């Protein structure tokens, strides 16, 4: 079975960079690896030094690795359209769906449900030949990533057309009940017609999506799956990390590794600037940053103990040796998360 590594964390802490690092380390270990980026920030492109990564993905040659790393970016509307066209009878039906104004707005709005779509996409990738050995999933930043797995009702409501369908049927056959009248008063009858078309067009897609989501939920609890939390030295990032861990706990899941990224060396705490010359705000910045890092580390250690790992990723790797440098950062993280699982 394909091993799954899910990388979670607050925005701006270097989550995507570390997900890329873990995937590169897996590729260098000779594993057939897919890196799926679901972070709408698209940082994956610059992390890997690539111009074009999209839904179809690209193969990245990794120095010293027998196989290429397959990197793919989640594009919810494209994925959704592809799933819809598989379910639909013909191209004309697919084209009609793509033109449906509600589908357009819906696809736009799917950005908010990106992580559920990402899980379904990861399952799709694991079902695609040749079956990958490992998939590394870089989730969208923040709490939504897990929230959708804990409370998928909202997504299901969006897709579960039964309620809407029964309303449409009522409206179509002229037996407009009180509910329909209330809705028509609020929105006009056209909304119902458009919803009806959308729902009929998407019935098959919904079934496939729901099945994949269910598989993804089981996959997340599989012992071969590891969850990596990425944190930075800000109170906010620590809050998000602890809240993510709480959400995971509610699903009986726990992180395999907690990375405190961009950590400064503790030895800097003893630094005393020479008299004059160094701007006072810089001196304050260094000491405040270190104090903040200590505070964040204490909170993380109190919650996760030995799972906390300081990572010195600087956010400014040299272009020429970027992939090797990233893989070197990823190796200890990958080893730590594998040991735990």
């Amino acid at each position: 079975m394909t091993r799954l590594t899910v990388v979670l964390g607050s925005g701006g802490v270097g989550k995507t960079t570390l997900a890329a690092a873990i995937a590169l380390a897996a590729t260098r270990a000779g594993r057939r690896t897919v890196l799926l980026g679901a972070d709408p920030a698209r940082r994956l492109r610059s992390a890997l030094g690539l111009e074009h990564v999209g839904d179809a993905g690209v193969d990245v040659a990794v120095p010293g690795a027998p196989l290429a790393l397959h990197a793919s970016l989640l594009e919810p509307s494209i994925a959704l359209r592809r799933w819809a066209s598989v379910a639909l009878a013909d191209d004309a039906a697919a084209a009609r769906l793509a033109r449906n104004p509600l589908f357009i707005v819906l696809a736009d709005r799917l950005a908010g449900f990106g992580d559920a779509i990402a899980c379904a996409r990861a399952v799709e990738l694991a079902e695609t030949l040749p079956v990958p050995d490992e998939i590394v999933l870089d989730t969208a930043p923040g709490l939504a990533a897990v929230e959708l797995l804990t409370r998928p009702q909202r997504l299901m409501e969006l897709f579960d057309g039964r309620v809407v369908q029964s309303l449409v049927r009522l409206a179509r056959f002229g037996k407009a009940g009180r509910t329909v009248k209330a809705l028509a008063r609020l929105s006009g009858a056209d909304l119902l017609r458009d919803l009806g078309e959308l729902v009929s067009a998407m019935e098959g897609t919904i079934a496939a999506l729901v099945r994949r989501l269910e598989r993804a939920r089981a996959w997340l609890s599989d012992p071969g799956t590891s969850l990596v939390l990425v944190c930075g030295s800000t109170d906010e990032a620590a809050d998000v990390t602890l809240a993510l861990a709480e959400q995971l706990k509610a699903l009986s899941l726990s992180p395999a590794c907690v990375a405190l990224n961009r950590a400064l060396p503790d030895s800097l705490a003893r630094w005393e600037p020479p008299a004059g010359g160094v701007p006072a705000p810089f001196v304050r910045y260094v000491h405040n940053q270190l104090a903040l890092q200590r505070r964040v580390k204490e909170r993380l250690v109190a919650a996760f103990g030995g799972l906390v790992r300081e990572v010195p990723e600087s956010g400014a790797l040299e272009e020429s040796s970027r992939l090797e440098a990233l893989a070197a950062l990823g190796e200890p993280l990958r080893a730590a998360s594998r040991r735990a699982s």
Partner: protein
Amino acid sequence: MLPPVVFVLGKGGVGRSTVAAGLGLASARQGKRTLVMQWALADPVSPWFGRPAAGYAAQALLAGLETMRFSAEAALEQYFVEHLHLRAFHRAFIANRHVRKVTRAAPGLEELMFLGTIMWLTTLAREDRGWVYERVVVDAPAMGHGASLFAIPHATKLLGLGGLLVTETERVSAMLADPKRTAALVVTTPDELAVEETLEFWPRVTRDLGRPPAAVVMNRDVSALGPLPREGCAWLIAAGEGLAPEPRAGLSRVYAHLARRAERERGLQARLSGVKTVPVADALLLDASPAPIDVVGRAAAALAPLWGLL
């Protein structure tokens, strides 16, 4: 000078709520009845003022400053009960479980209710309850969703909706289209992703709103450190003298980090030339761990000129 309704937009984590609270505080200090309207799962603002988290009902933070958290369901109820005076209709039909599911699932309806509520609170509420807010600072959802708000009236027209929503949409469109009533502010930090997102969404907001945002708020600004050339400088070399290699490398990394931020600030200013930028200094440059209310106070002092002089 900012109009009565200000949408504070920005990527998650750039300090949007801090800026919205600071702007609200600055406004209240000028004696204007001000509401900070949040659309988020939690209310971070009230605890900064020593108050419990607010819900849909507005809560006072200070004299003249209130906050509330938007909820589409509560807004719908208020709309029917307080504005249309249709309490029974609301209870019987709108609060109906099935109808609620549809209104939640139908794209754009919640957003339209959000905009409609802001409009109601600043204008129509005068007839319904005798007073209105003089200023509403909107702590909008994170950039992608926040920026999409201005496209909602267009999208609703595209859907060919009818009924009450048409009147509602037309009123909301008029509010957004009028620069004397509405403006957008974009909050950013000198972080790579925040700057990228600002540049990505700027044209979209400009198109949907029909004019560019009124200003950029550069939160966590580092310009107090001077130009910080990328290749380093004399004081950095002096700062590292006598240090072991590890802490010296740490010092260089802090410098490089700050130099990149200063460079990004200059880059953004160059790309958005002619746009007013309001810097709010990075708290780490000032003191160890300021209380959140002090951070809001500093933001208020920096942002007050945007409201103009009375």
